């Protein structure tokens, strides 16, 4: 047992300042989350309720086990776009009859639950998570189909939705569709490709073509119920396996389906008992400095996240700008890589490479805690092979097969974002703290680089350099990069799986690790560990 010692002083001035700043950001985050919860707004919510229907989140709450946690994913999808925050869809991991499931619910209060380009991306992300972690999927369907004005961005890539369902089934990961309303045209393949289908009487409507289209195509007179009603599908076409009398009944039936899956998690079980951290998670609010240039000790974070604050550091004396070591989170063993002083040098890169290989040897999942400004630049470093060493680390991350989770605590800039398993490196989950920022480099640096290049270009042409214009350009670029580095923006782009309250980090990681262990946890095979 190696308990991390803390030097956090909750009474310090810095701490209070950082904490206030973090709380302000959390308030702002709550405001943005509220937009997602609001869905289509009061008017459409009211109309939906008047039809006696449940809201998407109410359906989910009723579906999951009582008092169980629910991890909503990508709640800010479409943030900063022309579409409603949340992208007319709710996705998340919830426990149904003791089985962790990927739950995907269309939000019918937003344009009838129709899919816009962001909804499609959010759905893909959910499907990826379900596939990578072997999570059974439950679709709560009530969608008007594609948002037709943007069909060009939806129609062709959107076909993946149905492909994913049947591929999940091939991998023996069950898929369940509970159809509460419209699921027509292409949407009909959602129940069509699912292992189990429940339809709500007098609500579900599942057909390829509705009465007007049928009339146009063949001249046949028809109606909704005979073309795609729940009764018809349950009694005649056989597309529905279960006929639910109402929404609650559909959810009840959905639960009973999951109960009978005989679902077994393939990964190892967590340790049956473990301790909570010795230090208060509240402190996490005051640890991250308001200015990301000021480094902080990630051990203070680790001490408030891992079981019993028990962390065994690996290679503590070497490459000390990156902390590596072993710990447990909610009983699951993890290897942790955390940036300590922002910059990654050759030593840190080699240390990371070795550590990632060791984790693969012992089938241990990896947690990356980001606060990096990137790999070191400069003559000495280039000459000493920083590119090679950075490449080693990126190679190790790319080809590691143990599950990875990334948490962006502070900076995540440049190739450091890659080396620390950024989004493109397929971490199973990636969450950001409200204090996080991610871009190719900091706004100030990027503006400065552009300025230097422009100045050199002007000089080479023998032109005078307009300082006023330079200042204006720098301010504009800096502003743009800053705006595009903030977590709400990145979350809106689906570049993370959600922004979390730092105090929830342990809980979010616990849920993520538990979800991950539905699949096998196996490290890469091939070579032995290369000593660095």
């Amino acid at each position: 047992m190696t308990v991390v010692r803390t030097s956090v002083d909750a009474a310090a001035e810095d701490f209070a300042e950082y904490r206030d700043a973090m709380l302000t950001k959390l308030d702002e985050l709550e405001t943005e989350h509220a937009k997602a919860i609001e869905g289509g707004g009061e008017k459409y919510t009211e109309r939906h309720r008047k039809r006696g229907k449940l809201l998407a989140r109410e359906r989910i709450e009723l579906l999951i086990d009582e008092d169980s946690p629910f991890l909503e994913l990508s709640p800010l999808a479409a943030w900063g776009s022309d579409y409603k925050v949340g992208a007319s869809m709710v996705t998340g991991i919830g426990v149904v009859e003791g089985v962790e499931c990927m739950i995907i619910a269309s939000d019918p209060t937003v344009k009838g639950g129709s899919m816009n380009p962001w909804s499609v991306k959010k759905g893909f992300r959910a499907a990826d998570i379900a596939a990578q972690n072997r999570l059974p999927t439950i679709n709560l369907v009530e969608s008007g189909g594609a948002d037709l004005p943007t069909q060009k961005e939806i129609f062709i890539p959107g076909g993946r939705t149905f492909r994913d369902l049947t591929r999940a089934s091939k991998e023996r990961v069950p898929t369940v569709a509970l159809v509460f309303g419209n699921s027509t045209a292409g949407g009909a393949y959602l129940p069509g490709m699912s292992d189990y289908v429940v339809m709500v009487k007098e609500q579900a409507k599942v057909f390829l073509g509705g009465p007007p289209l049928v009339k146009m195509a063949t001249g046949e007179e028809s109606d909704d119920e005979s073309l795609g009603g729940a009764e018809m599908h349950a009694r005649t076409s056989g597309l529905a396996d279960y006929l639910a009398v109402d929404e609650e009944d559909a959810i009840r039936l959905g639960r009973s389906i999951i109960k009978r899956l005989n679902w077994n998690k393939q990964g190892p079980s967590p340790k049956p008992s473990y301790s909570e951290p010795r230090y208060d998670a509240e402190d996490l609010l005051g640890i991250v400095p308001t200015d990301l240039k000021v480094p902080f000790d990630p051990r203070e974070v680790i001490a408030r996240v891992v079981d019993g604050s028990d962390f065994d550091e690996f290679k503590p004396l070497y490459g000390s700008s990156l902390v590596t070591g072993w710990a447990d989170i909610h009983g699951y063993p993890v290897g942790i890589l955390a940036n300590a002083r922002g910059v990654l040098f050759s030593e840190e890169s080699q240390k990371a490479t070795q550590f990632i290989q060791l984790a693969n040897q012992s089938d241990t999942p990896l947690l990356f805690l980001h606060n990096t400004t990137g790999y070191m630049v400069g003559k000495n470093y280039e000459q000493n092979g920083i590119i090679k060493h950075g490449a080693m680390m990126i190679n190790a991350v790319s080809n590691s097969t143990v599950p990875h989770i990334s948490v962006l605590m502070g900076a995540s800039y440049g190739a450091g974002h890659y080396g620390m398993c950024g989004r493109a490196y397929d971490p199973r989950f990636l969450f950001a703290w409200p204090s996080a920022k991610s871009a190719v480099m900091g706004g100030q640096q990027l503006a400065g680089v552009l300025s230097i290049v422009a100045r050199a270009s002007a000089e080479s042409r023998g032109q005078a350099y307009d300082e006023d214009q330079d200042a204006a350009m720098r301010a504009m670029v800096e502003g743009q990069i800053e705006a595009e580095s903030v977590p709400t923006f990145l979350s809106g782009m689906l570049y993370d799986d959600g922004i979390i309250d730092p105090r929830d980090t342990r809980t979010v990681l616990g849920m993520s690790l538990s979800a991950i262990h539905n699949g096998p946890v196996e490290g890469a095979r091939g070579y032995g560990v290369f000593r660095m």
Partner: protein
Amino acid sequence: MASFECEHGDPMINSVLVANRGEIARRVFRSCADAGIGTVAVYSDADADLPHTREADAAVRLPGNTPSETYLRGDRIIEAAHQAGADAIHPGYGFLSENADFAQAVQDAGLTWIGPPPAAIASMGSKVEAKRIMADAGVPVLSELDPAEITADQLPVLVKASAGGGGRGMRVVHELSALEDAVKAASAEAGSAFGDATVFCERYLPTGRHIEVQVLADEHGTIWAVGERECSIQRRHQKVIEEAPSPLVDDAMRQQLFDAARAAAKAIGYVGAGTVEFLATDSGEFFFLEMNTRLQVEHPVTECVTGVDLVGLQLRIAESDRLPPEPPPQDGHAIEVRLYAEDPAQDWQPQSGTIHALDVPRVAAEFRIPPRGGIRLDSGFEGGSVVGVHYDPMLAKVIAWAPTRGEAARALAAALAGSKIHGLVTNRDLLVTVLRHPAFLAGETDTAFFERHGLDTLSTPLADDRARQLSALAAALAAAAANRAQAKVLSGLPSGWRNVASQRQRKSYRVGEDTVDVDYRITRAGLDADGHDDVSLVTSTPGRVVLTVAGVRRTFDVARYGDQVYVDSPLGPVALRRLPRYTDPDAAVPAGSLLAPMPGSVLRVAVEQGATVQSGQPLLWLEAMKMEHQISAPADGVVAELPVSQGQQVDVGTVLAVVHAASES
């Protein structure tokens, strides 16, 4: 306990069969065991798992369930005694205890009868005959009235079964026009319950006091009046609260009562334990009611205040021992309540089913005299026992003995209020309310107590609305803790955690006639529960929730049995039923369904399917616990379904009939 030396002959009894069940069987076993006497139980099929069956040294099955198949089968019981090697039979109370033929048969079979001589039983068995004997012996009696000659100025009158007891076959008549029906009904009930349809009438004292004297007589002429009891608080002529001594009786009246009781016992050559019952007025006038030639249900209060082991002495008297010349004096005050599985608010409807828990706190003794100031419990049931439909639904007798009446009432009320009684509706709240009632504490305990103070008021639950709301909250939080503890995955994570919170958790409960929705969230900042702004959560486990309510810490104990939830706290016990999260449509009952309110059998059916009925029209009758329950049409309409037929056994909740209201059809 004071000691009483009896003059001993050689012990005759080696093993006693108790021809009874439940608490009284256990009570007799206790005295037998103390004396080193072996015990034999008999049990019906329904009672095979009850404590009395298990506790005895030997137990013999009486096949069947109804009393007439089992505990009233004297022949089988005597055979059982032979089978199990018992040499004596104690009848307990009820069943065959006052059956002279049975007493005779026991003796004829060569067994010792622990009870009075058959002739004494017979002479008191007929109430008409008994009154005549008592009048002759100088005991004051209420004169018997001939039903045919009753005049309006003699009203009200009481119609009683001559062979009766326990309130059965009894009717009060206030109007002459009702007399004939009352006599018929009482006679029918008496016939069914006692096998003797004879009834008689006497003046009815609506506000009388029921006072009785415990007598003990040996074969050698010593007759004790051991003490008096007051049992005025009755429901349907059945005693509910009994105490010794009576708050009405002063020394002079006591002397008169004791003299009358001894005279009564002497007049019939009584031997053994018996009780002479009197009806007294507030002014101290009293009249002979009847003599019970057996041990009484309420004998423990006399034991407490006198230190006498009445069953122990019954055994010794049966062994022909001699009593000392004088009984011990009464000391302190004892009060007994009869805890029944019945719903006072629903016309005392008897309850049946599993009693999951029956835990009375601070019980100092069971079936014996507790240390002074202690609580005594005499119960035939324990947690997990099934209370059936065939017998009296009395769960337990709880007795307090204290130096004064007020102290005894307070201790008993506290013990009852703190009891964990789970599984069945009981009269507990009513008992506590009575024990704490100013009129009761002032000794104003006449037979009209419930009518005077209003059963509605008295049966109000101890837990007020706020207590019920808090108990529902505690039930929900305990359930949440249980859900977390039992979770197959993620059980170590915070309860109901959300990263994007849109709503609270909801659990709905049925509390009495009301539905209580508990909407709550447990956040980092603590409990956030709708309507409970002044409540914070201290701790919650599946069995216990500690809340701070408006600055005061309160502990709620929570027990769950399927969907039944019981929350016990000093704010009052609350029974809740968890409403399902989802309704299984197959389990839904059609609108207009009439459900069996209790298990029983269909006595008769008055209508046919398709019949047009008026609101209130009787459709069928159920018989349960020897009482008829009428099932009436809830509205004008048509009997759409009638799935039961005469003689059919039904469980509680069985659909008896479906009536479609006229407006629907």
